[in-house]
C-alpha cells in the first residue's frame, strides 16, 4: 500500500497543491481513503494529518469509510423530486436492503443523496460508480440491482446511448444532450482549429479589444465584462493563469455539460485564446466530478490538439506562444464554482471562498494573476474572433450581446438546452419548451429568483432579468413551500461553513420554514423569515451565503398566500411548544400522565 501511495505522490511531484488529484487516485484504488492512507499522504507531503483531513472531509465524494462495491448517488435536487425521485429512492432502499446514507450489510451497495448532478433534463438521475444513469424508474432500479447481484458490471448496464458524442466510444454514455435549439454562437457550424490560427494576425491587446468591443459578459452568472477582466489581469505583472469554470453546480443548469460533450475543442480553444490574451502558460479546466464520464473524450481532444500544434510550444505556429491545459477534477462541492473557492480547490485545499479584495485577476491561482471564466463565455470568445465583435453585437439586446444557453427543466414537454438570443421573454421561453400550466419559474436556480405569472413578460437580459441559464418551470400542482425547502436544504448542505450566518442562520431559517410547513407557524414567523433572511445578503462573504435566503425572500414576495394558508390564524404565541411532549420524561418518572 505504502509504495502505491508513494507512487501517486511522486507522480504529482510531492506537491501538496495537488492534494485533490492525490486523494482522487488514492480513493480510486480502494474505494475510500483509510486512516493509514491519510497518515501516509501526510507524512509523504510533510504536512499534518489534520491538513489532509480538512481537504478530504470538505468534499462530498471523498470518504474515509468504504462506500460499498456499488456506490449509488441519487440526485436530490428539486427537479429530481418533481420527476419521481421518492419512488425511485424507495425502490433502491427496498431492493438493496439499506437506507440512504449507509452501506448494505454485505458491503455491496451504498446509497447516498447528492446535490444536482447536472441532469435536470433527464431526472431522476443517479451516478453509480462514476456512470450516469438518467431517467431512473422503479423498474430500472430492480433490474440493475438484480444484475449487480448476479455479478454484472456497471458498464454492462448501459442499455442505450444518448445522442451526439454520447454515442462515441470515448464517452459511451446513456446521457442525452436534449439540445433542443441551436443558435448562432455556441452550437453553430464550427471547424476546430481554424480560429486559433488567427492569433498569427492579431496581437493579445487587439484580441482583448475585440472581446471588449463585443460587450461579452460572463455567462457564469455574475455577468462581469470578459474583455475588461482580461485587461485587468494583464495589469498585474508575473506569471498568469487561465481557469475555466466547469463546476456547473447551480441546480437546474446543465448547459456546460452539453458544450463539453459536443464542443470540447471550442472550450479548449477559448481557453487558449484567453491564455494568449493575458500571456499565460497554463490553463486549468476545473471540472465537476459528476462529469467524470467526459474525461476520456476531453483528454483525447487535448492530446489531439497537442499533436496538431494547437497546444504546447509555438501554438498554431505563433513563435513564443507556449501554453498547455490540464484538467482538475472537483469532488462534489457547489461552492467550488465560486471563483476564489475554485482557486483554493485547484490548490488542493478546502473550497472556501477567499476574502476580496484582492481579486483573482490580481492574486489568483498560486497567488498569481488569474482569469476565471465560464465554459460558455470562453466558447463565445472563439466565435467573436471568428466572426467579429460587430456580428456578435448584432444579436441580443442593447446592453446584452450575443446568445445565451438556457437550461430549461421541470414541468415542460421538452426539457433541454436552448440557445437563444438575449432578450427573449419568460413567456416565450415557456412556449418554446412546451411548458404546461405554469405556476412559477425559478430563474437562475436556487440563488436566483422565483417569479410568478405577473413577471412572465420580463425579458431575459442584464437590463431586466439576468440569469446564468437555469430555468426551472414549476407547474400548477406543485407546492411552493416544497420548492423553497428543497433549495434551503441545498444551501445548508453546500455552505462551506466559514461565515457564521451562512453556516447557521440558514439552518435557523429552514427550521422556521419547517415549522410553518407543519402547520405550526404564526404570523410573526413570516416577518422573522423576511427580517432574518434580509441579513444574509449583507452578512456573508460570497454569493452562496448572500443568496441563500433568496428562495424564502422571493417566494414570500410572490407567493405569500401559500405561506399564509399554512399559518395558524389568530395566534401570536409559539404554537410549536408541545406541553405533553415536554413533560413526557418527568411523567414517566413519577408515573402520572396528563389526561388525554
Amino acid at each position, binding site marked *: 500500500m505504502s509504495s502505491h501511495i508513494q507512487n501517486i505522490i511522486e507522480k504529482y511531484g510531492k506537491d501538496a497543491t495537488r492534494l485533490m488529484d492525490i486523494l482522487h487516485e488514492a480513493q480510486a484504488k480502494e474505494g475510500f481513503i483509510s486512516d493509514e492512507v491519510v497518515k501516509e499522504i501526510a507524512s509523504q507531503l510533510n504536512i499534518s494529518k*489534520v491538513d489532509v483531513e480538512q481537504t478530504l472531509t470538505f468534499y462530498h465524494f471523498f470518504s474515509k469509510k468504504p462506500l460499498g462495491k456499488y456506490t449509488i448517488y441519487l440526485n436530490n435536487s428539486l427537479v429530481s423530486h418533481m420527476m419521481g425521485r421518492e419512488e425511485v429512492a424507495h425502490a433502491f432502499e427496498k431492493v438493496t436492503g439499506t437506507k440512504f446514507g449507509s452501506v448494505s450489510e454485505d458491503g455491496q451497495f451504498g446509497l447516498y443523496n447528492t446535490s444536482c448532478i447536472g441532469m435536470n433534463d433527464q431526472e431522476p438521475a443517479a451516478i453509480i460508480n462514476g456512470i450516469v444513469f438518467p431517467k431512473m424508474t422503479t423498474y430500472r432500479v430492480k433490474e440493475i440491482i438484480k444484475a449487480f447481484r448476479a455479478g454484472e458490471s456497471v458498464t454492462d448496464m448501459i442499455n442505450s446511448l444518448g445522442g451526439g458524442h454520447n454515442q462515441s466510444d470515448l464517452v459511451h454514455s446513456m446521457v442525452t444532450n436534449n439540445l433542443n435549439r441551436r443558435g448562432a454562437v455556441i452550437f453553430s457550424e464550427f471547424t476546430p482549429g481554424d480560429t486559433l490560427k488567427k492569433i498569427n494576425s492579431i496581437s493579445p491587446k487587439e484580441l482583448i479589444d475585440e472581446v471588449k468591443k463585443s460587450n461579452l459578459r460572463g455567462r457564469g452568472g455574475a455577468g462581469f465584462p470578459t474583455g475588461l477582466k482580461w485587461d485587468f489581469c494583464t495589469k498585474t505583472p508575473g506569471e498568469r493563469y487561465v481557469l475555466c469554470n466547469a463546476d456547473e453546480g447551480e441546480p437546474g443548469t446543465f448547459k456546460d455539460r452539453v458544450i463539453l460533450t459536443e464542443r470540447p475543442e471550442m472550450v479548449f480553444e477559448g481557453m487558449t485564446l484567453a491564455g494568449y490574451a493575458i500571456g499565460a502558460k497554463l490553463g486549468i479546466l476545473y471540472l465537476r466530478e459528476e462529469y467524470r464520464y467526459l474525461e476520456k473524450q476531453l483528454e483525447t481532444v487535448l492530446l489531439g490538439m497537442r499533436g496538431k500544434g494547437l497546444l504546447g510550444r509555438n501554438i498554431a505556429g505563433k513563435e513564443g506562444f507556449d501554453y498547455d491545459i490540464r484538467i482538475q477534477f472537483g469532488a462534489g462541492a457547489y461552492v467550488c464554482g465560486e471563483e476564489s473557492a475554485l482557486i483554493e480547490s485547484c490548490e488542493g485545499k478546502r473550497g472556501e471562498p477567499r476574502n476580496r479584495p484582492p481579486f483573482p485577476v490580481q492574486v489568483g491561482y498560486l497567488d498569481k494573476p488569474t482569469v476565471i471564466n465560464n465554459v460558455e463565455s470562453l466558447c463565445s470568445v472563439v466565435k467573436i474572433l471568428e466572426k467579429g465583435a460587430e456580428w456578435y453585437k448584432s444579436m441580443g439586446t442593447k446592453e446584452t450581446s450575443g446568445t445565451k444557453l438556457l437550461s430549461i427543466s421541470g414541468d415542460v414537454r421538452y426539457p433541454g438546452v436552448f440557445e437563444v438570443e438575449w432578450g427573449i421573454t419568460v413567456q416565450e421561453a415557456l412556449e418554446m419548451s412546451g411548458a404546461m400550466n405554469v405556476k412559477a419559474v425559478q430563474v437562475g436556480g436556487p440563488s436566483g429568483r422565483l417569479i410568478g405569472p405577473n413577471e412572465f413578460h420580463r425579458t431575459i437580459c442584464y437590463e431586466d432579468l439576468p440569469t446564468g441559464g437555469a430555468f426551472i418551470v414549476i407547474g400548477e400542482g406543485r407546492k411552493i413551500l416544497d420548492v423553497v425547502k428543497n433549495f434551503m436544504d441545498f444551501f445548508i448542505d453546500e455552505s462551506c*461553513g466559514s461565515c457564521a450566518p451562512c453556516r*447557521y*442562520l440558514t*439552518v435557523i431559517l429552514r427550521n422556521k420554514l419547517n415549522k410553518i410547513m407543519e402547520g405550526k407557524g404564526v404570523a410573526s414567523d413570516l416577518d422573522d423569515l423576511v427580517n432574518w433572511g434580509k441579513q444574509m445578503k449583507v452578512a456573508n462573504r460570497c454569493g452562496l451565503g448572500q443568496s441563500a435566503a433568496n428562495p424564502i425572500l422571493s417566494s414570500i414576495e410572490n407567493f405569500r398566500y401559500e405561506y399564509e394558508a399554512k399559518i395558524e390564524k389568530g395566534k401570536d404565541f409559539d404554537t410549536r411548544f408541545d406541553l405533553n411532549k415536554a413533560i413526557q420524561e418527568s411523567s414517566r418518572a413519577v408515573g402520572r400522565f396528563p389526561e388525554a
Partner: protein
Amino acid sequence: MSEKIKFTIDGKECFAEKGANLIEAAKENGVYIPTLCHLEGVKPAGSCRICNVKINGRPMTACTTTLIEGMNIENNVEDIQELRKIIIETLFVSGNHYCPACEKSGNCELQALGYRFKMLVPRFPFEFEEKEVDAEAPKIYIDRNRCILCKRCVRSLKTEDGKSIFAVQGRGYKAMINIDHELAMNMTDEEATHAMDTCPVGSILKKERGYYDPIGSRKYDKKPIGSEIEQIVTN
C-alpha cells in the same frame, strides 16, 4: 517615515498609517469595532462577520480591510449593530453555551459581546444539539459545544516546522475543529496556555487548571468588552 492617511468613522476624523488594517487603525483612534475571529498579526479569516461596517456605503468586514485615504466608515449605526447582534445570537444558539458552568466565563469574548449588545436571550430557538468533546491530547481539551469556528487556532497555532495542529473538518453546519493528536502530544505547558488564550471562547481549555481567577475578577466582569479601546478618547 511612512505616509499618514485620513479617513472617517461615523463622521469622526481619524488618522492611520498607509496600508493599516482597519480594526487596528480604529483602535488607535479610540474606536471599537467588535471582532471575534480577528487576531492581530495573523492573516484575517473574515469568518465571524461581526466586524461588519459600511465602507463608502457598502457592507464590508473591517478585519479584512486595508485602509485607503478618504474611506468613509459607518460603525455605530443601527442596521450594522442589528446585524452584529443577530450574529452573536446565532452563535449562541449554534452551540451550547452554558456560561455559568464554563471555565472561560468572564474571559469569554462571545459572552462579553452578548453583554455589550444587551442580549437578554437569543431571538432564535435553541437546538441543544450535543457536540463531541475531544480530550485525547495530554494538556488541552476541545469542547466543541462552545466552538464558534473562528479559526484563530487553525491560523495561528502551528508546530515549530509550521505544521497545523488544528484544522477544520467537514463543511457547513457540520464543520468542526479537529486536533492533530500526534502533534498535540508534544505541546508544552506554555503552548497549551497560549492555545487556551487564543481561543475567544471556552472551546480550547487547559487540563488540570480551573478557576485560577475567581469569577467576578475576570477581564470582562467589571468593564464591557471594547471599553479599554474607547477609554483612550475620554482620557
